[in-house]
């Protein structure tokens, strides 16, 4: 069985699966149950001055039969007293010395406040701190969370403050609510961050109740924007993670967060440069037990691919990500339909007809009407392949020889 243990900025954990700072890490007894279920690490629900939450905090979008494609929340940081949290952290770390226990922090923008909380946490024996510069609702209105993460100078400054006060590894958790993820990431590294984690939640309004015409989640007739997470945000997170993994200035490990629910999701983050992953929504949906298949599935995958350690796949796909201008314009594929497998649902036909390039007409074959690709018109966009419900029925076939690659950059520099 492949070795799943990872060393993240000096923090060791038996596997790369950590719980993200959120309700599943609200208190010691919960984290202890999570560790028993198999989680390798956990980031404690953000500590700070205790707050008061509103009732009705979550709302979600479903996709067909599947619930909670995307989750939205307007919850704030911990509502438990600091001393209770600190006591439980100490106890939890003592009971689970081999697991990673990271403490998420958010206090007002004052040097002493950050110094004090960092030292209090170091004293508990926790393995590291994560600076929550990402919360996009509520806390940001008080000048914390995303309000800090959206201004690179603040990000750098507060990271420096924390580094002054503790020897613990400092992870900076970034907000995706920025035009480019690079400036805040660079600022965190400049401020001395030992690692980055991303993404926190995305600004969102999840929907509107069509009867009452009040947006979700309804708090006494009113709603505020919240933070979006869950399966729907994964592609956004993957893009941001890979962007930082490709960035030479970012020479610290990355913790991938956003929409991870299975070992497959996790493997994709690792391949695109994350050293470990954090999970929130999937656990809120199904419980801590999901980690069992994450561990089992990832280790079977590594075994089948012949890797002895999870470290061997970290960043493996990063070199495969480039800019559009460096893609081969002469790469030519077309769709081909296996008519032995075709169930004649004709989804490919209508998709191409109305959503692409009108190149899947019908053809009579032995008295039945079949969709058939006109290869001379097909632009190889993949749409029919994506909508076909039959595995292996429509494949994208390569037609060019691969001998004369030509990129847009080359093309324009020649002209």
């Amino acid at each position, binding site marked *: 069985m492949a070795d799943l243990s990872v060393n993240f900025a000096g923090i060791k954990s038996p596997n790369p699966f950590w719980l993200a700072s959120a309700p599943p890490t609200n208190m010691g007894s919960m984290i202890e149950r999570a560790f028993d279920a198999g989680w390798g690490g956990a980031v404690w629900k953000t500590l700070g001055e205790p707050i008061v939450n509103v009732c009705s905090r979550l709302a979600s979008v479903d996709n067909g*039969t*599947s619930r909670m494609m995307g989750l939205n929340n307007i919850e704030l940081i911990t509502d438990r007293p600091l001393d209770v949290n600190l006591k439980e952290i100490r106890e939890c770390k003592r009971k689970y010395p081999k697991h990673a226990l990271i403490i998420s922090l958010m206090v007002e923008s004052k040097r002493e406040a950050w110094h004090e909380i960092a030292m209090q946490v170091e004293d508990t024996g926790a393995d590291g701190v994560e600076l929550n510069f990402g919360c996009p609702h509520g806390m940001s209105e008080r000048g914390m969370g995303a309000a800090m993460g959206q201004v690179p100078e603040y990000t750098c400054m507060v990271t420096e403050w924390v580094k002054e006060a503790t020897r613990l590894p400092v992870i900076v958790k970034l907000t995706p609510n920025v035009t480019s993820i690079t400036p805040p990431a660079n600022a965190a590294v400049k401020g001395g961050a030992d690692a980055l984690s991303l993404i926190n939640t995305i600004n969102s309004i999840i929907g509107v109740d069509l009867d009452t015409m009040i947006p979700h989640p309804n708090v006494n007739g009113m709603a505020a924007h919240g933070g979006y997470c869950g399966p729907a945000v994964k592609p956004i997170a993957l893009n941001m993670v890979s962007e930082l993994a490709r960035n030479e200035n970012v020479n610290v490990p990355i913790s991938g967060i956003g929409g991870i629910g*299975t*070992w*497959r999701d996790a493997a994709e983050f690792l391949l695109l440069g994350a050293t470990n992953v954090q999970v929130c929504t999937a656990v809120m949906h*199904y*419980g801590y037990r999901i980690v*069992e*298949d994450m561990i*089992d*599935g990832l280790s*079977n995958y590594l075994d089948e691919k012949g890797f002895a350690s999870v470290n061997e796949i970290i960043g493996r796909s990063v070199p495969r990500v480039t800019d559009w201008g460096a893609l081969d314009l002469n790469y030519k594929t077309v769709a081909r339909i296996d008519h032995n497998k075709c169930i004649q649902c004709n989804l490919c036909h209508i998709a191409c007809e109305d959503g692409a390039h009108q190149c899947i007409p019908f053809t009579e074959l032995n008295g039945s009407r079949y969709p058939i690709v006109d290869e001379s018109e097909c632009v190889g966009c993949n749409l029919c392949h994506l909508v076909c*419900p*039959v*595995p*292996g029925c429509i494949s994208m076939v390569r037609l060019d020889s691969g001998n004369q690659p030509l990129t847009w950059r080359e093309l324009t520099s020649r002209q």
Partner: protein
Amino acid sequence: MSLTHDSPLNIEQIERNFCEIAPALTEAEAIFESNRCLYCYDAPCTRACPTHIDVPSFIKKIASGNLTGSARVIFDANPIGATCARVCPVDVLCEGACVEKTLMAKPIEIGRLQRYATDAVMSRGRNVFKVGAGNDKTIGIVGSGPAGLSCATYLARLGYAVTIYERKSLPGGLDTYGMAEYKMSQVVSVEEAKMVERLGVEFKLNTKIGHDISFDQLQEKHDAVFLGVGLGATTRLNIPGEDLPGVYDALDFIERIKTREWLDVPIARTVAVIGAGNTAIDVVTQARRLGAERVLMIYRRTEREMSAYKYEYELAKQDAVEFWWLTAPVEILADEKNRAAALRCVRMEFGEPDSTGRRSVQSVPNSEIDIPCEMVIKALGQKKMRELLGGISGVELDAVGCVVVNEHTMQTGNEKFFAGGDCVNGGREAVDAAQTGKLAAQGIHRFLFGEQVELAGARLPFVEKIAGELPAAAPAAYDGPATPAVDLGVKSYGGPER
């Protein structure tokens, strides 16, 4: 002697008639079906499965594309999970319990998904478990049916040297020799036995204990012995003509079918089958598939008393079997060639209920009727193995002939002997036998090492009771006059008397 092949059907048609009643799921079906599962916590299907397979876990693994892991979850709780996927009466077990049934009127097809996952690893000839670190103890297992194979698997995984003694030439017990051919053919159970062999278990086939080797010798050779011998031959009718050519025992008839040598399987135009249990159903449905034109099911009571499952009874109905209720055989008549030619029956009627409330039946005077038929098949249930097991010192049998065991450890009155499966429960399902084999493995380990292991699904997963109370139900909306209070003559409970 064997009857000549007397079927109007050609071999191709018979092959088609015996194709699987529940075929394999395609990839697309498996993806759809596995995603349909709600992934219940403390799932009713897991509770309903006698081996307590973690059903939602294995189904979600199919959905996540982790088929190896899925098969491991199944085989971990049930070493004959591939057989059970095909032969379990799922509507009274897992699928019957599936809450999906109430949500969508159609339960998740758990049996077929289980087959999908197990096929995926078995088709690659893979084992999903490793042999445990060896210990110095050896165990002898008598019988390679579900009980024996299950017990052997767990013991091998715990590090024991295990030998299975089997009187037949193929392993698998009734999984190999008894299952209706349209549910499952021998290949599956034999392949499953090979997985057990790959765990290092030694199979001594064609070896009858009590004949080739005595129980005493076995007891001397091994540190413990597991009895998974199942049941014996079909019960006799005790009527004249019972031994005529043309009269068959259900188990022999099915065993011939299992070879798929269709030309050697006896069949006739009219076949009378005596009994109304699941075995009788297997016989009538298969006789029809072989080409018998008329198949009669003869039973002394009515459909209300029959022990066959509803699903099985429906199968027989679909196959246009004639049911002769309240009919009892009294004699099998011969033709001039001295072969079975007719079944003489009497009509029955219900008498007064006996002390257990079951109404007795008695024959109606002068109601004899001769039913012409060239073949009679007896499907009355199997005899217990009294002669074989009665001689083992210390092993106790109950009044009907079942082995008496401790229900947690499966240990018999002789501390070295453990038992499970049909010989203990008197004849249930393959999955029940697998569970008792598992419990016996735990019992044997505890007996020899004093250590209690927890094998997957040995017990129901423990789920904490929810603390507190349910809120009082909100009063129903009611806008008519207040409902008058009615004194039901029952005092409401107001706490202990002061």
